[in-house]
């Protein structure tokens, strides 16, 4: 495959991530921050996000397994995750966090458990989509091309 085809795949895949609501404008803001002094800025931030996600989801899971459940503790983790996901433009993850916080407020264990499941699902989808996007980026760079950006 030549560089133009890789670039087309990259453009199409990124566009579909926006169309399907995985990403929002904040991801474009991240891309705009990347420059020659920080050429891997986006990948660095997203890698931090992946680690943060796994840590926070695990914390939420453990907090929901306690008896009795400390909903304020669960909410604290969800609030953190809402902040992280908003910072990187992970729109669907952020939206689940919003719903999750409402169930924490209502001390609704069943609702919280459902949200945790949904969060795990959305994070998993986002991660695999972003890893595919970064894989295409590597192919483009290896072929000597430039990464297409969405304006």
């Amino acid at each position, binding site marked *: 495959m030549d560089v133009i085809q890789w670039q087309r795949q990259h453009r199409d895949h990124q566009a579909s991530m926006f169309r399907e609501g995985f990403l929002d404008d904040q991801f474009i803001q991240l891309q705009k921050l990347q420059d020659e002094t920080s050429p891997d800025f986006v990948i660095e931030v997203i890698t931090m996000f992946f680690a*943060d996600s796994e840590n926070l989801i695990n914390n939420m899971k453990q907090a929901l397994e306690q008896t009795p459940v400390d909903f304020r503790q669960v909410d*604290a983790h969800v*609030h953190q995750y*809402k902040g992280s996901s908003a*910072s990187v433009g992970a729109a669907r993850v952020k939206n689940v966090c919003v719903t999750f916080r409402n169930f924490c407020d209502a001390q609704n264990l069943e609702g919280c458990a459902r949200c945790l499941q949904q969060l795990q699902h959305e994070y998993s989808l986002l991660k695999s989509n972003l890893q595919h996007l970064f894989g295409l980026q590597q192919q483009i760079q290896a072929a000597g091309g430039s990464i297409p950006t969405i304006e």
Partner: protein
Amino acid sequence: MEAKNKKLLVSQDLATHLTALVVDDNMISRKIHEKLLKNAGIRNQGVGNGKEAVDIHFYGQSFDLILMDMDMPIMNGIQATKKLRSMGICSMIVGVSSRSMESEIQQFMEAGLDDYQLKPLTKTKLSSILDKINSNLTYKSKSNHVI
């Protein structure tokens, strides 16, 4: 258009003379905000909670701008802002948080903030902060001139 461009040039020129402190326990937010400030030409550093922000000032450092998160361990943004103001710190302190309820923002503002911006901070939001700093400097300059 010319006036707008002139204002932008003034803001950019101003930015290169400013220093900033990012106070946030979330490493991702801190990294993004530090990069935003760096790209604007503002020398900056970050700390992980309100106590570290207070300590850095206690040991003699000062900053033109402080970006203060609300929810942090050890000392939160409200406590840190109150403490900094009681120490006589006159820096522009801007609350940057994902809290959106009016009562929460009000409480934060009453602690001594000059401004509040909803996370995530963007280039546009940072420009409006720099405009405020620029206005404050212009006002002070005119006041000194009158005296």
